[in-house]
């Protein structure tokens, strides 16, 4: 049996918990936009470029989180540009980019003969979060939340109807760019928590679970954050109790919440 009183004094656990909660709080509202605007696959594509970011960071001697953040932001800008110029459907474009990025990442890893723990990259390494990571994550999270707060009304109007928003004086392209960059940054800090493969889950599942329980966009965003936080706590607990990997445990906990929320009858919105 695990000795809980001893665990309570272990620093790594508190770091892990803080990191998980930070990411969950931010991914609540951003996840809502991902659901409303059907951007799930977009998040996935950005996440797939994370491996490339890690290798670049290694080669250029930059902190991995920073390097991944920069790579994701660059990819987001590239995607926006391509979306406007290409005749291809968005999901085709995303499919091309996401897998090219993943392949490029793996090839560069072997070219530079970097020793990367692929498994921890793919599934997250929450228990290895250090104080440096935590500072960087806090700064990013606060930045994203502040931007969300200031742009909230504009983001909603933009999500409802882009042209209407544009006619009513919102600079649509800037709002779109802000949303993409926020997502890119979130992915960079979430990588440590749930890993590349599962980031989209952390984005989508709490928001989807919150849908049934909310009547306003604000409530849905807050509930999504709350469900995400609960999932982090439960997942972390499970990972200690049964020695399961933390990231997947968190995602499973979120899925459990989603299932429970589905039990509510359809009539109530």
């Amino acid at each position, binding site marked *: 049996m695990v000795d809980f009183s001893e665990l309570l004094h272990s620093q790594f656990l508190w770091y892990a918990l803080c990191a998980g909660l930070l990411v969950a709080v931010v991914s609540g509202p951003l996840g809502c936009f991902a*659901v*409303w*605007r*059907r951007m799930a696959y977009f998040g996935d594509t950005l996440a797939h470029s994370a491996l490339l970011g890690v290798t670049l960071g290694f080669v250029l001697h930059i902190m991995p989180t920073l390097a991944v953040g920069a790579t994701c932001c660059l990819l987001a800008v590239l995607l926006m540009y391509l979306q406007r110029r290409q005749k291809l459907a968005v999901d085709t474009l995303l499919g091309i980019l996401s897998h090219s990025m993943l392949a490029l990442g793996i090839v560069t890893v072997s070219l530079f003969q970097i020793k990367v723990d692929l498994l921890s990259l793919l599934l997250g390494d929450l228990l290895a979060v250090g104080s440096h990571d935590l500072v960087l994550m806090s700064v990013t999270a606060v930045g994203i939340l502040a931007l969300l707060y200031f742009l909230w*009304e*504009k983001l*909603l*109007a933009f*999500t*409802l*109807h882009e*042209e*209407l*928003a*544009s*006619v*009513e004086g*919102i600079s649509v392209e800037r709002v779109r760019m802000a949303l993409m960059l926020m997502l890119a940054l979130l992915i960079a800090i979430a990588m440590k928590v749930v890993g590349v493969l599962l980031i989209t889950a952390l984005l989508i599942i709490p928001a*989807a679970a919150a*849908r049934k329980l*909310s*009547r*306003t*966009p604000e*409530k*849905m965003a807050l509930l999504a954050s709350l469900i995400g936080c609960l999932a982090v706590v439960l997942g972390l607990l499970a990972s200690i109790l049964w020695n399961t990997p933390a990231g997947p445990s968190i995602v499973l906990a979120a899925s459990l919440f989603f299932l429970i929320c589905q039990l509510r009858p359809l009539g109530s*919105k």
Partner: protein
Amino acid sequence: MTLIGPNGAGKTTLLRLLLDLTKPSSGSIWRLPGLRIGYMPQRLQIDSSMPMSVERFLLLGQPGMDVAQAQKALDRVGAGQLLKASLANLSGGEMQRVLLARAASRKPQLLVLDEPTQGVDVGGQSELYQLIATLRDELGCGVLLVSHDLHLVMAATDRVLCLNQHICCHGHPEQVSKDPAYLELFGDKVAPYTHQHNHQHKLSGDIADAGECIHDHPKKTPSNKK
């Protein structure tokens, strides 16, 4: 002012240009600085994953509005009971009314409507046009309308601009409905579209050889006064 014309005539393109949603490839557009435009898009498809009430939608991005004003705006378009309804659950006609309420609630100087009666049954259509006319008188605003409902539009509008890649004809509805170009386009009833010119169009829509037209073409690309 009403824009009419067959599919692909360039009505929506002209509207998008005027609203600054598309940049013109040539020519320039003059707009009154600070012109308040109320825009009613063709349709608004909201993802059912987004919880949004009509009330919230009317208040969104409009700092001067309060709930009472939102209710008043809805009452004016005859949709007062919808205030608390979910935006995703509205029927086509209800949605059009809500969109109109939002456009009108901005106290616009120019009301721009892109096929406002899409998805509305015939009875509702004439009601909606009457409503637009009332709103125009109340707000004292200009109305620019894209429409396919010729019979209803012709009765209520001051000026008609008939487009088919170029300006076919324009003017007072009575004048336009007797214009040979209009008759060729739509027939004297609303007949299936047959467009016969005795002149050729370039791909750009300009008239290749003006020569002897059976109808009088203004020899210019669409003017952008309004």
